[in-house]
């Protein structure tokens, strides 16, 4: 074993955990610095470890996203394709690019300074992007909360009581707004057993038609249940009832248990 091997080996043993993101900050920084030296063996091992780690996704219980998500996504994509906005917009504000250019111009006279300054700019950029992400997330959550508030209070919304067939279960209240979506809420619900979850179904008016699966949700620790289905399909007009069943984690394509709550949708 050469001296180089003796130095490299300790890092090689950390590569799998690095790929998994499990290293503590100190070890992580050490491995990153080592990889930055261009060690071919560790770099190759990292690529393979990333692949291996990605296979752990198959441990997740099988689940299918709703048709509404597919429809929403394809609508956005079609609109963007039609608008021919082929150049992706940067999330970095324009002034930030100006700052980068100014910094680089200054650093042109000193190679060392360029390196140091560029690092700083990258950190600033990272911090800014992180900030932007947080703001976008907050804005999204605020938008959902607003939407839910409007659905619950708009006189145009239709109230759909959802009593339970079981005596010890509290009643749920569904509120449907034709443009904004559907909210189903309730209090003091018992937690479904094990990993099971509650799933909403739309029961079509058409005789013999299968119930349409919707979102799944478990009540929170206080027993509060608050489910928002944004942009429900036009199929709501063809829906005669809403139902909620208990299903395996991730939901089911069709009900596997008797509905606990059912609410009739008034005719439209």
């Amino acid at each position, binding site marked *: 074993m050469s001296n180089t091997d003796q130095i490299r080996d300790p890092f090689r*043993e950390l590569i*799998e*955990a690095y*790929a*998994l*993101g*499990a290293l*503590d900050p100190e*070890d*992580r*920084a050490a491995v*990153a610095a080592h*990889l930055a030296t261009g060690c071919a063996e560790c*770099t*190759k091992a*990292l*690529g*393979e*470890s*990333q*692949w*291996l*780690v*990605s*296979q*752990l*996704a*198959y*441990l*997740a*219980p*099988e*689940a*299918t*996203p*709703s048709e509404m*998500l*597919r429809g*929403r*996504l*394809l609508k*956005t994509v079609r609109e963007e*394709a039609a608008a*021919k906005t*082929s150049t*992706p917009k940067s999330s970095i504000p324009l002034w930030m690019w100006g700052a980068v250019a100014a910094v680089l111009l200054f650093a042109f006279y000193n190679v060392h300074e360029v390196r140091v300054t560029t690092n700083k700019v*990258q950190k600033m950029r*990272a911090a800014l*992007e*992180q900030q932007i*992400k*947080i703001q976008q*997330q907050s804005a*999204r959550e605020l938008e959902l909360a607003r939407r839910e508030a409007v659905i619950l209070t708009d006189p145009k919304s239709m109230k759909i009581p959802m009593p339970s067939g079981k005596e010890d279960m509290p009643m749920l209240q569904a509120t449907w707004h034709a443009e904004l979506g559907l909210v189903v809420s309730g209090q003091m619900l018992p937690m479904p057993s094990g990993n099971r*979850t509650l799933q909403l179904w739309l029961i079509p008016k058409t005789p013999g038609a299968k119930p349409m699966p919707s979102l799944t*949700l478990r009540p929170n620790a206080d027993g509060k249940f608050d*489910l*928002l*289905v944004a942009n429900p399909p036009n199929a709501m007009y063809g829906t005669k009832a809403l139902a909620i069943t208990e299903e395996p984690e991730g*939901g089911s394509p069709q009900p596997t248990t008797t509905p606990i709550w059912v609410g009739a949708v008034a005719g439209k």
Partner: protein
Amino acid sequence: MFLVVFTPSDSREVSLDAALVRRLLQRDVNAFEELYDRHSRIVFALIQRILQQAATSEEVVQDVFLALWRNAAQYDESRGPFVPWLLTLARNRALDQLRLKSERQRRREDQTEELPPVVTMPDFEGSLDEQRRARRVREVMASLNPQQKRAIELAYFEGLSHSEIANALKEPLGTVKSWIRNGLLRLKEGLQATS
């Protein structure tokens, strides 16, 4: 800084995905639709396992696929297969969401890359179809001792570090490190043995 050598494979699945991603660069909505239909289930399953909340998970799935649509050029097929790349992107986004939600951004603050790191497909990878590989992953992980399996799941699905896992499981740090490394090596051997 993740330049690696990609071992080419003749897997039809891999080349189909790569061809579909190439068509995204031409703003081909049909290609996007096909990629979504092929991979949205595993992406949603992974994100929902991490976030445990269907509505938020769908938001993140939307983010992931819109990022793919808008930045398809960032995927370089010569540097690794598509699905692990997509799953890495999905996991990163879901863990970011988890950290935002719980306001614990105590780790990975230096991890600023938008793109997932490049993954290298081992020689045996192309010979296993997705369903068989998924089954094999579950079999190998089920053969680990429960605490070892739990340690790997805490790292992968909850983004915990060695120390945090040691605290959570009340086990020595060295034990947790060995569990995770040996478990991943067992998984690698298990997948190789099946190929």
